[in-house]
């Protein structure tokens, strides 16, 4: 409905001080939900902004972006008949959850290809820039690219997943001024033009990270996916204060000087994760605004999910496709484009917050970037909580140094054997020895990264690279160093303890346990996420 004020005049994010009349608050809890009452007068809740309106004519906006790029020539003028053109695109880890068809990548790539067709370009390859992530299946590629593109190029083998372990498929472009190696997919590096199609769901994505990480291999990625870098990134969602990004930008300089010409296309989406109507829409509303229908829907959904086996719940949630809308599209020079992208990203996500808190709480949902159509294993629980959610800040962390983090998730001792084989060994062997990021990096990383079996599975099956669980752990390294204690509510006790955290049965218990660290009556902040928000802490 066009007249719906949520669509025409979305409200900005909100920091709500909890009082006695505040209703119980929604906590995501894996493939389920919890409603928790937070202590009055010392708790606050940060709500995300409502979804910004999508572009009225996304196809026309894309066309205009390609014809009027930022600090670059119009795309049609870069396309010539005999050229070697490569189109790389973000993999299925973005957006989360996957979006409804048509995916933004499909919309953009079709227009790019239409311009290439007009120019008579024949030599075109499309590469899923998945770095060390698992390969995408045909269904997933079709979802991202659409059937038209897939059917036109896949039969000739011109659509494929990036293979960072292909000895003939990677080239070295040189060293950065900090002696970091820069490697790149050979086809992309040897192309006359590399067009990168990005999808920014959070401010971490995009820029030089797209090509410097997405099309790179272990020898290039290890220079920024390590503990020292992550400890220096405060936060890695804030590009200018992120060593992760500084390193990628240095690698970008090398790509710029020694690699292919790059035409970057970046996009942002709103945070319309659960829609304005339908059964999931209640998850996007503020609790005191739930009407009778919302409450009935929520109760039915929760009771139904509580009764279902986990596999059925996963099937339901994995089937959910978010009705995200495109809020901006810009193309041209990598850095100039990314600056505009970040503005749009922050416009949707940033919520101003004053001061830090003693205890930070949040509920973890069923999905993170590395378990699309898969299982959220305990290592991914750690990564999503201490990596992503903890780092959703600009300025300073929401929780004070030495504070307590309370997360809600079932944390099952369960792994997807095809997608996450090295995670199983990491969990069983490495974490049972140490949870210290620096120690496990020094002791085990190389062994996992160079393991022939993991490499075989990465290249030929649908497995994440052997080194990937280490990166998940490094992602949370900064939070581990910063926090005094991490408590998981409602999790598998053995799995939680293996992670080095403390299990709690209820939120009340968790708050009691937290007071051992931060003292009685601590201040509490709840991050009401997803839909995504980023705290601008002053």
């Amino acid at each position, binding site marked *: 409905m066009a007249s719906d004020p949520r669509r025409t005049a979305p409200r900005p994010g909100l920091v709500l001080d909890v009082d006695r009349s505040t209703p119980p608050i929604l906590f995501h809890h894996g493939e389920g939900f919890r409603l928790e009452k937070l202590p009055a007068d010392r708790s606050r809740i940060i709500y995300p902004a409502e979804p910004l309106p999508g572009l009225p004519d996304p196809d026309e906006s894309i066309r205009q972006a390609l014809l009027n790029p930022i600090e670059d020539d119009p795309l049609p003028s870069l396309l010539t008949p005999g050229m070697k053109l490569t189109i790389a695109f973000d993999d299925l880890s973005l957006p989360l959850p996957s979006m409804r*068809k048509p995916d933004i990548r499909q919309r953009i790539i079709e227009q790019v290809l239409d311009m290439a*067709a007009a120019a008579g370009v024949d030599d075109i390859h499309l590469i899923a820039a998945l770095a060390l992530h698992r390969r995408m299946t045909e269904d997933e590629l079709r979802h991202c690219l659409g059937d038209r593109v897939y059917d036109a190029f896949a039969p000739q083998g011109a659509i494929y997943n990036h293979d960072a372990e292909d000895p003939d498929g990677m080239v070295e472009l040189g060293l950065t001024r900090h002696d970091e190696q820069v490697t790149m997919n050979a086809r992309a590096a040897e192309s006359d033009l590399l067009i990168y199609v990005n999808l920014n769901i959070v401010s971490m994505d995009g820029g030089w990270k797209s090509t410097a990480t997405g099309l790179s291999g272990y020898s290039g990625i290890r220079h920024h996916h390590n503990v020292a870098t992550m400890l220096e990134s405060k936060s890695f969602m804030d590009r200018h204060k992120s060593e992760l990004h500084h390193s990628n930008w240095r690698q970008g300089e090398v790509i710029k000087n020694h690699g292919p010409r790059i035409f970057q296309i970046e996009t942002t989406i709103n945070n319309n994760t659960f829609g304005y109507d339908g059964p999931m829409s209640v998850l996007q509303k503020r609790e005191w605004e739930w009407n009778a229908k919302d409450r009935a829907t929520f109760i039915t959904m929760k009771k139904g999910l509580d009764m279902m086996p986990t596999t059925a719940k996963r099937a339901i949630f994995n089937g959910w496709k978010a009705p995200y809308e495109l809020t901006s599209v810009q193309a041209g020079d990598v850095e100039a484009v990314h600056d505009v992208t970040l503005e749009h990203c922050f416009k949707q996500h940033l919520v101003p917050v004053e001061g830090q808190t003693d205890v930070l709480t949040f509920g973890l949902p069923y999905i993170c970037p590395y378990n699309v159509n898969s299982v959220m294993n305990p290592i991914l629980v750690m990564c999503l909580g201490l990596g992503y959610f903890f780092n959703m800040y600009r300025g300073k962390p929401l929780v004070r140094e030495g504070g307590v983090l309370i997360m809600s998730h079932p944390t099952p001792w369960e792994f997807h054997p095809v997608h996450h084989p090295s995670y199983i060994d990491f969990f069983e062997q490495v974490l049972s020895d140490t949870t210290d990021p620096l120690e496990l990096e020094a002791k085990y990383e190389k062994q996992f990264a160079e393991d022939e079996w993991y490499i075989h599975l990465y290249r030929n099956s649908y497995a994440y690279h052997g080194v990937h669980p280490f990166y998940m752990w490094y992602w949370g390294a900064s939070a581990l160093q910063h926090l005094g204690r991490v408590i998981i509510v409602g999790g598998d006790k053995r799995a939680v303890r293996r992670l080095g955290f403390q299990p709690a049965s209820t939120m009340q218990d968790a708050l009691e346990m937290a007071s051992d660290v931060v003292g009685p009556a601590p201040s509490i902040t709840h991050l009401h996420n997803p839909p995504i928000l980023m705290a601008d802490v002053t």
Partner: protein
Amino acid sequence: MSKLARQIGLPKLPAALSLIRRFRALPFPYRAPSTPRGVRPLRPKARTGADYDTSWSRRTPARMARAAIIEGPMRLAVSGLAAPDRRGADRLAATKGSVIFAANHHSHLDTPLLLTSLPDPWKHKVIVGAAADYFFGTRVTAAMSSLVIGAIPIERTKVGRRSADLAAELIDDGWSLVIFPEGGRSPDGWGQPFRGGAAFLASKTGVPVVPVHLDGTGRILRKGRSIPRPSTTSVTFGRPIVPQDGENATRFAARIEREVAALADEVSSDWYTARKRAHASESPDLTGPESASWRRAWALGDRSRGAKSRKRHWPNL
């Protein structure tokens, strides 16, 4: 009862029948007057063809009945007969409001196939332009066409504004229109040149035209055949197009035809090859080669493969 009837013993007429006879015997003005000889009688008001009033078929009861027919027996029949492969609906994702669906036309199956393939916003608020002289020839066929497919009569044998005005008025009211710009089913498996109706309506109402390519329906029920033979079909929706500045209806109609031809190429080759040929104005023509009829039939090649695929048996001696 007459005297003869009484003599041969016929039973007495029922009271109701007797009443009708007495009513018919009533004099003018209780009954219609007869026309004097030598006076040309007034022409009776036409109730068929382009003059058929279809407004009843757009009221709620008729729409509900039509939705039930389309979603029930029609969808079932289409799936059984045509096994459609539907593509390109995502190209309409950003389109809102009324549109004109302009499709090529090979068979009576085209309309049910298209009606069961339309994406959600348009599915149940759509009218179909149908030949006034064929579908609205009698009151029974007219009523059936209006009810089942939401047809409105379109003149194809003479120039008249009535059809166009009605279609434009309904489009302005938020209805979408399905139209077959070729004006009739293909006589030989090849397409016919597109007429300007869809383009004219788009120019007049300002709504976009969605080119649609239907493939395979000719194999199932081509013109001249009355028993359908199951085969496979595809429905491909193109990107909505609007008339450009200074583009008249004739040129726009030609562009719609080119878009449908590009969709046909997309089905027979692949999307990227089709786009390259479309940009180079080299999409294979829908109307086929201009040559003798046997050569046109020959050139159809694989397209008529389904029609020939009858199982062959050894003679039973």
